[in-house]
């Protein structure tokens, strides 16, 4: 330890520490203090200490429980996102090279030529849609054969990389009950079987897959079906399966010693047994990290979707805790109550993370 380094260290730290104080530490203090007052942006309301009033109000707020339920319900998409990311990573991790390496460029050129040719033919014979999709298929195939898994990884990562207001607005068009891609696709599929279906109402519907359960009246339950919440979950899975989770799983897979697989193979273990008994335990730290990060994100999620797609509706079905905090703080200008909700959310995040940590530590010693 060289204490004489302290002044130097402070110089290096100064810019970050200053910002940290002003934009993190002070707001944390303000928020905690504010949650015990009637802090409001309305000029007519004088500030006074309110004790635990905001928290007491929260526990009697029926909307709070509804939005808490929504938040957890949307998080049911997380297992699918994580399992999907793992599946894609396992697929990408496999062998994509041909027995003779020289074949790859030839095959790539051939598939590109076939795809472009058939696209041109299809376009001329009057199925431009098919031509469009076949052309895209051929392009991806050519890139995949030429560059290997990196090309597929790039495509899978794109929804995650571009995620934001633009993709959310794009999806709200895809979910349009009449002309959106999704319902039109469903209608086409149904037409093959000779059925006529209207398709789910998606963002306009309060139905949900747990809608058959007897929820309290203020949950505005629309019954069993696909509704706004499922729409947001589906979009979330699309955006997450190929994202950072997949990248982290790929790194985890690369670190599994190949000898373990070889030993298991010699012992006669099939592909599933090798995954179950070699890959899965070896991936445990990565899986744990991914689950913890996803849960933290999930509890705080839903704001952008609600603000850009649904305004929290229909009938509050897509209002999550994060959107509720925004509504209280910036629409009803009730900062005290908004802060109290935020702190309850913090306790929730912290508690769940701690729980997973203890669980993870216990599993690790098995």
């Amino acid at each position: 330890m060289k204490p004489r380094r302290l002044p130097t260290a402070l110089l290096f730290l100064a810019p970050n520490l200053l910002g940290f104080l002003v934009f993190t530490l002070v707001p944390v203090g303000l928020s905690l203090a504010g949650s015990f007052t009637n802090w409001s942006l309305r000029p007519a309301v004088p500030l006074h200490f309110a004790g635990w009033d905001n928290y007491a109000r929260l526990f009697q707020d029926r909307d709070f429980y509804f939005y808490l339920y929504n938040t957890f319900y949307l998080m049911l998409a997380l297992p699918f996102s994580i399992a999907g990311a793992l599946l894609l990573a396992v697929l990408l991790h496999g062998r994509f090279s041909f027995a003779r390496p020289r074949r790859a460029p030839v095959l790539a050129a051939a598939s590109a030529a076939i795809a472009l040719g058939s696209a041109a033919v299809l376009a001329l014979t009057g199925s431009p849609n098919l031509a469009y999709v076949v052309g895209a298929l051929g392009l991806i195939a050519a890139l995949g054969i030429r560059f290997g898994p990196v090309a597929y990884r790039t495509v899978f990562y794109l929804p995650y990389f571009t995620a934001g207001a633009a993709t959310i607005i794009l999806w709200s068009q895809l979910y349009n009950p009449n002309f959106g891609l999704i319902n039109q696709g469903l209608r086409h599929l149904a037409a093959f079987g000779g059925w006529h279906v209207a398709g789910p109402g998606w963002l306009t519907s309060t139905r949900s897959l747990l809608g058959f359960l007897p929820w309290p009246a203020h949950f505005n339950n629309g019954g069993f079906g696909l509704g706004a919440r499922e729409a947001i979950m589906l979009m979330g899975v699309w955006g997450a399966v190929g994202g950072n989770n997949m990248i982290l799983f790929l790194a985890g897979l690369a670190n599994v010693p190949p000898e373990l697989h070889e030993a298991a193979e010699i012992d006669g273990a099939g592909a599933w047994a090798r995954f179950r008994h070699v890959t899965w335990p070896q991936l445990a730290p990565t899986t744990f990290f991914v689950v913890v990060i996803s849960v933290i994100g999930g509890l705080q999620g839903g704001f952008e979707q609600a603000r850009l797609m649904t305004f929290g509706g229909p009938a509050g079905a897509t209002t999550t805790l994060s959107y509720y905090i925004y509504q209280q703080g910036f629409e009803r200008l009730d900062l005290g109550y908004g802060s109290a909700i935020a702190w309850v959310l913090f306790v929730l995040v912290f508690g769940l993370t701690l729980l997973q940590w203890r669980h993870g530590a216990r599993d690790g010693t098995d």
Partner: protein
Amino acid sequence: MARDFRTLLKHLLMVFLAIAMVLPFLWMVGASLKPNAEIAHPSLVPEHAQPVNYAIVLQRAPDPHTGRILELDFPKWYFNSFFVAAWVTSLQVMTSALAAFAFSRLTWRGRDTVFLLYLGTMMIPSLVLMLPNYQVMVRLGLVNSYSGLILPMAFSAFGTFLLRQFMIVVPRSYDEAAEMDGAGPLQVFLDVILPLTRPGLITLAILTFLGNFQSFFWPLVMVKDEYLRTLPIGLLLFQTDYGQQTELIMAATVMNIVPLIVLFVVMQKQLVSGIQLGGIKG
């Protein structure tokens, strides 16, 4: 041969998965080229392609419905997003690198305690901070200004943490050799540590740029005036004002997303290895 056949099947599976992922983007491009009358038509490809949609969004052509130029400034939104993200990125990488150096290469009393405090604040949801942070900005008089968009984002515990992970693995002997030659801490930082942690710096820069280019919440509460609108805020208002003109909204969306795709394809190698390095050690 049999193995090559299996490889081919695997490629086929991946191509179909990839198509499922890009289908929304394919629809987006198709819809952005349609005339308004064709939007409700169940076709991916427009029958009469109308590239002028892009010119309408860029205010180079009048809207055929009203005969007027749209009342928005798309290039300005673009500039704002770019400008803010570039400033935040350079400031954040700089402040994070300096702090990470102090946390990894210098020894001083209380270092680990202060670092734990930093890490602890990463656990606090941004939602807890957003209401009071807005009040801080009101007090500082920074609401509705570029500084208000940039400054709060310029300091990051995550960035400090990420860069510290990269710096801590550099062998001590490097600093010691430089110090032996008479280099001060600043020189060690600039000439030894920064060049050696380039992958970390690039990763943080890409992630920060992307996050701020796309950032939605903070500009939503900060921006009041037209001239400060960033792309996500502009898109939100576009959707509110011209909600029926899906083709124009999609043209704007394409123009938002395409630069990101280009950025990603160019930078992906560094980004992926950076995420993996930072993630494993984190």
